[in-house]
């Protein structure tokens, strides 16, 4: 009887280890890439990498118990443009940005894309090089914490830059239509509101931007179709999450000032 109990205890222990191992490997994944050092390609920043590590720490603190974990975090020279770029354009997003549920980029940007400090394989992720959500279990939400990526007007406008065909199952692009400042708290605050307080994705981004800025204009672009409901999206495990809007029929663009 004693031997039987001992063996059973061993079984339970193995099972526990296996489940834990699987939870950390196959739970909900996040990634981040951040650039402070631009190697002369643009002015250096100072808080982007801190924003990435704060984002990762917040995921561990507020989402670890729900199976959330950060599968990669690349800073400065290890942050590569091709990690966000579609395979057909020479990118490897299927291994990185499009292989996680949530990704944060922090660094320089403009209306055409966002910027890196190396030539892997070039310094700018141009909007036409992005197709997100098309990979199996691909990207749901991307935070592009950089200036003016979601600027609405001009030619081409925001729909024709970041709308279809970028959204291939992606739910949201969260970002700014105006300039934004170099702060290290926004990613962390987003995670806190989305995970600790169970806010929807759009509410968590709204609140994180209002707290961290004064006088800038934040924005998001989201996709929907007949079977999806991304308006009510929560980060997976923290409430209702919409099915992927694989072939979106409608895109919503929403922007607000972080002060009057």
């Amino acid at each position: 009887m004693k031997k039987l109990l001992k063996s059973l205890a061993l079984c339970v222990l193995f099972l526990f280890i296996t489940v834990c191992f699987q939870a950390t490997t196959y739970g909900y994944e996040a990634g981040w890439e951040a650039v402070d050092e631009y190697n002369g390609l643009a002015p250096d920043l100072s808080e982007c990498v801190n924003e990435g590590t704060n984002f990762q720490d917040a995921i561990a603190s507020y989402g670890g118990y729900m199976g959330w974990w950060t599968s990669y975090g690349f800073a400065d020279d290890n942050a590569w443009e091709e990690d966000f770029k579609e395979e057909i354009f020479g990118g490897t997003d299927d291994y990185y940005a499009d292989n996680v549920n949530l990704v944060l980029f922090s660094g320089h940007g403009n209306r055409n894309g966002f910027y890196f400090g190396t030539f892997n394989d070039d310094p700018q992720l141009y909007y036409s090089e992005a197709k997100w959500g098309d990979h199996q279990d691909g990207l749901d939400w991307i935070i592009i914490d950089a200036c003016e990526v979601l600027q609405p007007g001009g030619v081409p406008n925001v729909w024709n830059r970041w709308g279809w065909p970028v959204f291939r199952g992606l739910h949201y692009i969260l970002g700014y239509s105006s300039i934004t400042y170099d702060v290290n708290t926004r990613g962390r605050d987003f995670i806190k509101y989305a995970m600790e307080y169970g806010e929807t994705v759009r509410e968590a981004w709204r609140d994180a931007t209002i707290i961290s800025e004064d006088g800038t204009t934040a924005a998001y672009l989201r996709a929907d179709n007949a079977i999806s409901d991304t308006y009510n999206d929560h980060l997976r495990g923290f409430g209702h999450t919409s099915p992927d809007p694989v072939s979106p029929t409608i895109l919503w663009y929403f922007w607000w000032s972080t002060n009057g």
Partner: protein
Amino acid sequence: MKYRVKFINIVLIIVFLFVAAGNVLATETEKDKTLTKIPVITPASIEYKLLGSLPSVPSNLPTYKVLPKDLKKVEKEGDAVANALAFDIQKANKKSLDESGNKVQSLMLTDNAGKRLEYFSTGAVFYRDSEFLSEKSADVLKSLNKDEAGAKDLFATLGDSFLKGNKLSIPGLERKGVSFARAQAYDVNSKTVVEDKVTGAAVGYGVIVNQKNNIRGWGPGAKATIYYGANKQVTGYYNALRNLAVKDNKVAIQTPDQVVKKYMSYQEPKTLIKSATGEVKTILIDKVELVYYLASGAELQEEVKPNYLIQGRFVGTDDNGNTIETKFEWLEDAVL
């Protein structure tokens, strides 16, 4: 029985090893990040130009200490913000965070209607209801039957009255402007915007920290904003302004000239703004201003000191060789 148990163990070990092997194979597909292709760029010498005149400033200024907010007292006794918003603290669900990210305590209160009131130990307070900056909200301009200018006037008046009537106004608070939140829907098939509406208004305020010398606060914590919905109801309120007391009455400060010289001595362009600039060749300094930096309401800041805010433009070239100008802002310590 003895053998069956052993068999189960063996099966479990195989399952574990299978999962582990799968993970090893999965991680092997990752790239070698040490093969980074770093550009070889010889920094061009930057030409600095000071446009306009430097401000006259006092030779010394006070610094301030931040008086933290007692969240237990708020929970027990309530406060003016909860009263102004008719938010019943006693009936709300409460969740406290000992460390809201960065040595700041917070208290989140949620009522049965889903309204949220969040207090921070910095003194910041953040209220929002279900209509707060929502794309589903009714069109503000249509509901009020006003154009943007008319609606701005209305909300400016409402904002001022809200603060004054609820004793939330503080000395030095100044209205900065009114802006609108906007939602647009784009039909992918017809490639047309099928809905376009203004779903909320924000009345924004800044603060003059040192009224004697007319020096304003600057930064994410230098603001208070009231948000309105289509029915002129308050849907959100965020006030990051800290309660300050003079710490040191006279601290000697640098002259603007000293600070500009320091900025011009940098070999690389310095900015707080995350704008792609291209290669910067010329830096035009448009304005130098003495300010007090106020950190985010969710950030610990024990002391508020004067800083110089340097604003201007980077002139550079983009990938196609075109000249581009991008705005920059930079803070330098003003204290000697």
